[in-house]
């Protein structure tokens, strides 16, 4: 019983993050993952279940940029979504 409740908690938290991404469709996001290529900067296009679809501007590897990437939300270590209030995510050049 306790186990099940905990499982529910985990699911609800995942769901909440997913909702948060959904709420911010069309905004720019900065994401770090442990897995390669480690960093994504781009615009949130849509959220499909627990996958966020990004228009990627920048990653750590130039060849992977300017493309659409789908990122599993569970594997996002940290993120920052640009809104009108906080600082904007820098445009990386060079």
């Amino acid at each position, binding site marked *: 019983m306790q186990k099940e409740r905990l499982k529910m908690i985990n699911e609800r938290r995942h769901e909440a993050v997913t909702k948060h991404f959904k709420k911010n469709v069309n905004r720019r996001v900065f994401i770090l993952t442990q897995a390669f290529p480690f960093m994504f900067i781009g615009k949130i296009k849509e959220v499909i279940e627990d996958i966020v679809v990004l228009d990627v501007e*920048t990653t*750590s*590897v*130039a*060849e992977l940029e300017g493309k659409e990437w789908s990122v599993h939300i569970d594997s996002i270590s940290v993120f920052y979504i640009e809104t009108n209030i906080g600082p904007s995510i*820098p445009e*990386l*050049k*060079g």
Partner: protein
Amino acid sequence: MKRKYHVVAIPIRIVVNTFGDHNPNGMMYVLKENEQKVKDLVKKNPFTPVDLVEPLVIRANAGDIVEIQFENKLPFHTGMHFYEAEYDVCNADGASVGYNKDSTVAPGDSIIYRIHALEEGNYFFADLGNPSSSKNGSNSNGLFGGLCVENRFSWWTDPVSGKPMNSGMYADVHHPLLPSHREYVWMFHDEMEINDVTGNRPINHITNQEEESFHGANYRYEPENRRAQLISEGVVCPNCVGEEVHHDSWVFGDPSAPILRGYVGDPARIRLFHGGQKETHVFHYHVHQWFEDPQDLSSTIVDAQAISPQSHYTIDPLYGLGSLQGSFGDIIIHCHLYPHFAAGMWGMNRIFDTLQDGSQCYPNGVPIKALQPLPDRAPPPKPTKQKPGFPNFIPGKVGNKAPRPPLGIVGGRDMTELERHAAIEKPRPGAVFTDPCPEETPVKEFNVSIIELPIIYNREGWHDPKGRIYVLDEDVEDVCSGKKEPEPLVIHASAHTCIKINFTNRLPHILDGDAFQLVTRTYETGFHIHFVKFDVLVCDGANVGWNYDSSVLPGETIRYSYYADVELKAWFFHDHLFPLSHQQHGVFGSGVVHPRFSEFLNPATGEEVDRGTQVTVNHPLIPNYRDFALFAQDFTLLFDKDGKPLNPPKFPGSQDDPGLFGVNYKNEPLQFRLGKECDPAYSFSSFTHGDPVTPILRAYAGDPIRIRLLQGAQEESHSFNVHGLRWLNERGNLSSRLDCQQHIGISESFTFETFIPRPGDYLWAFETEEDLWNGLWGLIRAYKEKVPDLIPLSDRPMPMKQSRPLPECTGKKPPPAKKATLLPAKGPIRTFDIVAFQVPITYNDFGDHDPYGIIFALQEDMEDILQGKKKAEPLVIRANVGDTVDVTLTSKLKFDLFPFKDGIYPYPEVKEQAFYPPSLRISLHPQLVDYDVQTSAGETVGFNGDQTVGPGEKRTYRWYVDSQLGACGLWDMADIRNHKSQGAFGAFIAEPRGTEYVDPYTLKPVRSGANVILRNPLLPDVREYVLLIHDGVRLLDQNDELIIDPIDGILLPPPDLDKEDLVDTYDQGSRGFNYRCERLINRYNKNPVLHKLFSSIVFGDPATPVFEAYTGDPVTIRLITPAERRRSHTFHLHGHRWLFDVKDMDSRVESFVGHNVAGGLRNLQLLGGAGAIGGYSGDFMYRAGNIRWDLEQGMWGIMRVHKEIQKYLPPINE
């Protein structure tokens, strides 16, 4: 917690062995409580080793503050400088650096050093009050020690008494949560002054010349010469020669050298330090393996590890003492460099299988000291009459050579009654007291012979008339008849194989004498193996301690058995009975353990094979690959075609750097590759001179490859570089950094796993000047189209049919390479206009200078440099990951500005000096970045087109920065004799994407320079300091007299200094950082106060870079060794530490970088930034760890960390 020690530096006579060899002027650190005791004991025992005379080892726990009251009783200022620790540099540096307060101690005075031991580890300490490398210095005489920092909450006891202890090299360390373990300190050191009982230098009893210098561990050594003398005097072992019984306790009893004692299965930790001052040693420990980085389970497993002066490593043998198979007996530990090994640099790990309570004796009647069992392990059984335990069941005869093992020798003896009791249930040949092979393991059997035959090394007829090699029995005839080229034996097997070797000794009894060597009766030989699991008593292929002598006589066959438990890299094998005499003739080989289910094919025919230096490997699951093995060799004893010995020693039998070099029994010296044009720029060109005779590793473009790098002989460091390819430094760790260079010492083994991105010829080279000059280079050739004698890999696309004939040697200049800019550029393009020109370089304010410097510079800076408005510095350029870099190189070299137009460069010299006129062509070769070797390697190699530029010519190279590489070296490849040590090198730094680079003083953007601030929108602002280590420099002093460094730089040289014989060719020349060196001798001549030589208060700042920062500023040091000689350098920065691998958070933390040699690269992010985690300020010295001969010669500088804002130095993020 706080831990206090009272340490005294005292003069002491150090007796290093029972033969009475001693250092009359020894110096040591000792705890105050032992000072009088040790003095009294030494007085009573003037010719016998005294246990208390050992390098001081004290202990603390991680997190402790260690407070040391240090008292100096030596007649000059001394101190204690700690590696790895954090401390206030102004009070506890143990030195007098820059504008810091002097923290050395005057004779008779004392000081308190307070240091913070942040993490577990080996904290080496040594004196910096007297930096002389001569016998009048402190370090060579023993003034060093170790602070072992244990895991938090540990405590330690004496292994004999079980009582708490305050100091000592061996301790049992306990912990409430972790297993108790044996802790052994192994402190290599070298070049100590040694006299014999008569007070004279020891004499070699065979050559009647002075013995080799001291090479030992823990203030002890056990030279072969001394032991062999007892044989020649008829005291022991009639009919023995010497080398084969050097380690035999049956003949001589136990050595004075360290014996590390434990029970089978005990967890153990060897804290390995290099307290010596000059040589890079290779620590080898039979039977055991360990992680190169004990904290990182994905790091490489090694069983031999190079260690350069003042560096240190932790060795945690996997599976505890005796390894996985639970072997027991005497396990030798030694420096694998044979001249050092013979000189006495060895000891043993003695693993008992029965309890030692002090009541037992060795076979010679010497009592066995008690050994406490570790408290958390069941004690081993007590010895009984039937089972007396090791070594007392072995049927040896004291005073005679160890007996041969039972069962092993074909037609040999069975077991004795006692042996039967000691043996396992089902003993078999090669596995009597432990069986490494699990039941049902697939067996692979090899019949190996050792033979003697002449070997021709190159087209000029250089040859070794007495080559000695391992060969499979089935190949003996073909190799002897010339049908098959001799090459080092490489056998192949898959993991989880029980390997059986039937080894036959087909050597003649006698190794004949010649200009290099005296006649030696090398009548027995063995097959000693690394890495695999085996029973050390019977299968070591050696003769160690109280073990059996597991070698065989001529005509006999012995059976060995090993288990390859997991995929291993190439395991090394060689002889352990007469290696000093004949390993350099070719007695080495390798077994490669591939992944399970591998199949090995002859790359030319596709037939299945089980040996060969080049094989193609098929695998059902992982990508197929090409496997190449390369063996470096030195002390290669060659004669030219007329029988003239090449570089013979002064007298036969001398170990003073005789002979030349080889790789897989071949070499391709550059002196024979000048051609009609007499232009060194084409020496590597196959168009001009044909392919080299050295190995050409063949593949198709795109093929995965594995390079097995080994060194088969004999004493020296080598630096392996591949141009245009790179690999993960730790093969099993994807977070590891990329590398394209590897330092190697004898017996080390490395696997480089990579692939060949494009067709073309890739240069591999042992790339120090003398190695390259004498022919240690070859090619990796990647074909674009199908060639008849190379099978394609079956899982790769079939190469296209050959559409054009392969290029051939024309004997003429190579055609120019295609334009690099025809290839598409990726990302933003950064362009650099670089000129190469000659300009005098001033190395310091004392007027030491190179009037014939050759440098690379940005075109826009050339005029200013020529006019002296800008100082000559090595060119450092930068670009970001994702950038394409177009470098256009122009040569402005002028023939008249070369010093030696006759083509002989007189000093620093190389072995086999020969005509090699200066080239007016020049090139720029980059490390690590991605490029097409056919257009942008910055060199003219194989059948690639010409990429060098002549006077007035231009060529553009196109490089792509595809990864976060950090430091990359740049250098010329057109003339390795007349350009590089003169300054033709620089650095390229690959920075994170989006980084801008600004001058630290003006904050204006810069395009070059060694000292910049990096600014990146997502990363902290970082101060970046680029340090280029280089040596082999020819300097003149202010009177234009040639400086014969290192000799001219020695402080307090003794009057009897043997200038001529002191240095090897590869020690010759001056050295420094970034075209600067602050030679201490200049300072000493001005103001002869030894302990103040680093002081800016007395002398002003050094000429070497003084890098400035504020406390806490993030700092990255890019350390690059572009040039040039084989002697490796240790780098150390006081008071700071960094990750061994900048890309891997799990990697070990260090305050040094070991064995820097040509091609070496490292990126050091200082933990906690400038001033370290503790946030200290002051002058932190960066320097070489080699007291001999780097520090005196000026390899040091300062990182200045300010606490308060300086007007001229804006804060980093202003």
